[in-house]
């Protein structure tokens, strides 16, 4: 478990084939997401939609990270592209109701990128905080 800068509730929504597999590998190494981070597994990035993201914020998450497979690596071919577009649509909607765009982040990864996922979680802070601590 890594020490994080911001311990307010966060949700990571990700494909079980990339982020989920990466978390499983991390678990084998005795590492895991920090306790303030809730993990929501989906069968494919293509099943992530606006509602899922809005509900995460509504249910208390201060930040939401959407993680899909790398471009061209989706088992369902276009799941990553759908996840990217729907995250963009959700970001636009969230901004229109006063939720800052930085609070929703989109990343793509492979199953061997667990350390990157932990780093992204650690670095997922407000832009001004990121500048102060860098």
């Amino acid at each position, binding site marked *: 478990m890594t020490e994080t800068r911001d311990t307010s509730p966060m949700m990571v929504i990700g494909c079980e084939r990339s982020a989920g597999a990466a978390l499983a590998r991390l678990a084998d190494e005795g590492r895991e997401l920090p306790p303030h981070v809730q993990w929501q597994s989906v069968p494919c990035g293509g099943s992530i939609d606006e509602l899922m993201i*809005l509900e995460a914020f*509504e249910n208390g998450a201060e930040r939401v990270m959407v993680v899909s497979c790398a471009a061209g690596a989706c088992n369902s071919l276009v799941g990553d592209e759908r996840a990217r577009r729907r995250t963009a649509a959700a970001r636009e909607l969230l901004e229109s109701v006063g939720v800052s765009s930085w609070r929703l982040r989109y990343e793509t990864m492979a199953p061997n990128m667990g350390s990157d996922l932990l780093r992204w979680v650690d670095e997922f802070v407000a832009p001004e905080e990121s500048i102060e601590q860098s």
Partner: protein
Amino acid sequence: MIVAERKPIAEILANLRQVSSVAVVGCDTCVAVCMAGGTKEVAVLGAALRLAARQEGREQLVTEACVERQCEVEFNEPLAELVANHDVILSMACGVGVQTLAEQYPSAVVYPALNTKFMGRPEELGTWSERCLGCGNCVLDKFGGVCPITRCSKNLLNGPCGGSQDGKCEVDPSIPCAWQLIYDRMMAIGQVERLMRVEPAKDWTTSRDGGPRKVVREDIVP
């Protein structure tokens, strides 16, 4: 089907900031198919309104409901208690559904959450295009099933115009020239000679020119 899209959130919120309760009511027919106002879209808008209230520090009850067909009063009857218990009904139906609710519940404040666009069909996932203007006098039999009134940007009954280039419309190159489509279709079904006939000017009295229209079936009315 009727195609609609959600209004900008800022426009929707402008009507809701002073009220303490809102019922978001969707319609699971046309606007559900075009992903604008069905059960899922109601959930998205409901969540967005609750987040907006939280961000702005307002106390507001947001309730979600959806009926099968908001343009028919029978489907809206179960909404009576919901309507009575909320300051505003935010309808995610087409304009017909919004007006049906407003007529059915005269003391309710009913606002639209969608902009009703046109009668059309889905071309592919996420894309809908206009097919019928509801002119009241269908001429599709004369034009191979391609409507020149709706699909020609100039509503020409005797086309094409000089702006048809490479099968595209001069108004917008992303629009197929309706008259190219008509010609191709008439060739395909062996009726191209019908296009030699000059069509008289359209009688628009069957359209909106005669005011709001009504269909009455004397054999059916009670």
